[in-house]
């Protein structure tokens, strides 16, 4: 066929490409590009064929399926045969969780290939259409140049997209899916199969009194904690910033250098140091109180179940020690940025220094730091470190399911996962956290200018 004047309907090359990837490109005389698409198809089919065993008379997906087919099969069924003891010995069973994760990975990779296929089909269509209109076909080299400039943004983001899909999105999908299974310590693969159970876990958390009591208790404390810790650090930091920037103070640098220390010292080290200082048996703080005669007995700061509010108060104070310098540093920065003219004008009008503070410094600092309050609230809501290193959730609360008085939702989930291996319940909890924190953040974000400009 002569290439001049023959008009082929662009649907034809795109249909060809849909069957044999790159075939449409070959018809469009873009041989190299066609080859690349074809190699993608070879890779796609090759992976499936080589990882599976299709050339057999008794084909069973469980045994002969390839990466993609078996992956999807595993995700849907979660395995059909558990590991069993038979006369012949231990048979190899299905590991539901491995199947599930492999299934998610296979599905994600499958979607990537589907994306390449869509690109391939639409490219064949577009190229032919353009040829029909202009009579020109870009050679591969020109195409690559054009591709680089028109796809620059996607190409540059590839590493980030790849990492996000496999190390952030995949784990989140997994932990969401686990909430709909019966994956717990009592039902561990590979000797048992995990099953899909729908919303049963959600139901049992809402209906079993021990679970709902723990959830309500831990959730309430998490909210109280997030409010208290954010407020104490924010206003404590503000207060220190005002004092340290006061004109009356000399040696500002020395004080600032000292007060900023808790921010600079790695948090987990400070927390472990405080944990030993507040140790009920050997801790120096109790010792000091005994030495000066304030108490007769040692105080179990963090482990006294009879007085959980003591542990909670100590926790908030220690967190204040850790957290106020950040806000102090931040607000000092904001305050030094306030134009001196405001204060001079106020002086001329005869304002007192407290009036200056309440009418100039306070509103200006609040305005530029208020958004951080929400950020700080949500990070305190999930402040795992302070619980894990300092109180370990204690004192123990016997009426809770595996949680102590100072446990936050996040540290409770950690205990449910790693100590109790109640994975399905833990997943339900993380979905709940996700919904709560997520809606706060989205609500907050929708009001910002950044959103409207987006």
């Amino acid at each position, binding site marked *: 066929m002569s290439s001049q004047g023959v008009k082929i309907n662009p649907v034809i090359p795109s249909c060809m490409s849909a069957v044999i990837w790159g075939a449409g490109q070959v018809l469009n005389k873009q041989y190299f590009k066609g080859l690349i698409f074809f190699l993608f198809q070879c890779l796609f089919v090759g992976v499936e064929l080589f990882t599976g065993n299709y050339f057999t008379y008794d084909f069973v997906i469980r045994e002969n399926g390839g990466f993609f087919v078996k992956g999807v099969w595993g995700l849907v069924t979660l395995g059909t045969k558990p590991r069993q003891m038979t006369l012949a010995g231990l048979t190899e069973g299905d590991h539901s*969780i491995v199947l599930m994760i492999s299934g998610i990975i296979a599905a994600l990779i499958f979607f990537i290939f589907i994306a390449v296929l869509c690109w391939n089909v639409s490219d064949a269509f577009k190229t032919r259409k353009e040829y029909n209109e202009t009579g020109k076909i870009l050679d591969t080299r020109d195409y690559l140049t054009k591709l680089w400039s028109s796809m620059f943004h996607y190409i540059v983001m590839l590493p980030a997209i790849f990492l996000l899909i496999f190390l952030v999105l995949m784990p989140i999908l997994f932990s969401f899916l686990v909430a709909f299974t019966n994956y717990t310590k009592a039902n561990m693969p590979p000797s048992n199969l995990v099953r899909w159970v729908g919303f049963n876990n959600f139901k049992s958390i809402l209906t079993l009194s021990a679970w709902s009591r723990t959830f309500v208790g831990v959730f309430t404390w998490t909210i109280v904690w997030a409010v208290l810790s954010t407020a104490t650090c924010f206003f404590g930091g503000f207060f220190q910033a005002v004092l340290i920037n006061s004109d009356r103070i000399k040696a500002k640098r020395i004080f600032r250098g000292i007060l900023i220390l808790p921010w600079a010292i790695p948090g987990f080290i400070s927390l472990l140091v405080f944990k030993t200082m507040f140790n009920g048996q050997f801790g120096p703080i109790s010792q000091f109180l005994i030495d000066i005669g304030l108490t007769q007995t040692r105080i179990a700061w963090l482990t006294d179940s009879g007085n959980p509010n003591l542990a909670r108060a100590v926790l908030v104070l220690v967190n204040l020690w850790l957290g106020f310098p950040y806000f102090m540093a931040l607000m000092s920065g904001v305050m030094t940025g306030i134009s001196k003219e405001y204060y001079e004008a106020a002086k001329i009008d005869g304002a007192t220094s407290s009036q200056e503070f309440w009418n100039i410094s306070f509103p200006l600092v609040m305005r530029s730091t208020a958004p951080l309050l929400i950020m700080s609230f949500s990070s305190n809501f999930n402040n795992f*470190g302070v619980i894990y290193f300092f109180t370990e959730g204690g004192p123990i609360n016997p009426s809770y399911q595996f949680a102590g008085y100072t446990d936050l939702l996040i540290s409770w989930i950690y205990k449910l996962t790693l100590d109790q291996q109640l994975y399905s319940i833990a997943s339900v909890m993380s979905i709940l956290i996700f919904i709560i924190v997520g809606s706060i953040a989205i609500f907050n974000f929708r009001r910002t200018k*950044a959103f409207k400009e987006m």
Partner: protein
Amino acid sequence: MGKRKNDVDLENRKARIKNRMTTALIYLELVVVSLIVLLPVTWIVGSSFNHTSSLATSSIIPKNPTLDHYIALFQETDFLKWYGNTLKIAVGNMLASVVVTTLTAYVFSRFRFKGRKGGLMTILVLQMFPSFLGMTAIYILYLNFNLLDNLGALTVTYIAGQIPYNTWLMKGYFDGIPQSLDEAAMLDGASRLRIFYQIIMPLAVPMITFLAVTTFMSPWMDYIFPRLLISSDKNKTLAVGLFEMINGNTNNNFTMFAAGAVMVAVPITILYMCLQKYLIQGITAGANKE
């Protein structure tokens, strides 16, 4: 007349006294708070030089200061190896994070393309999901690909985890750099990559420093991922090694922990102090993206 003058004097004196009292109170408050801040710090430093190793007998000013615990740290544990591991992870995380995150943020800030809005919303949502909730999945992923107990894989986990939050932060900063600069360079025929590293990067130095410092720091503080993904002693990070010294029922390694804590905290504290200015700029810029 004379009486009135006396009154004025008295008023002035009262005001002066009140003024001085306020100043004294402020000094008093600052000194007390400084002492509260310094107490745990000096206690841990003092303990690390203490003669005995038990928590009960350690004191702020040791009677017979000794370097034994520091020596033991290097001789009896793999402390130096842990230090090296953590440093490797920190540097790797810092370099890769800066490259990946700034490029992604640049694209989100300067390009308009299909899926941009969706992408931004997705990372906003992903950023709120505490990364360790997905750790079981990451564990099994690495188990399948034989990547457990591998420092590189641990580093990649950190790099991926920081992308959503920091991309938002960087994008906000880039948005503040006038677009006219890009356009002028574009007219001069500069390529997009060149615009990025010759125009945008230099203008974003404070924010990039902030990103570099925070990503460098995080492996020093994180305990959860290394505990889960690293099993051998030689691949441990500092946080895991130190935590294990103190997390037993017997606190007999307390002074060794103290020595290790000092060895970790001193360089990091110095680094923070030197880069304070950039860190504060970074946070304020993050806040002002409102």
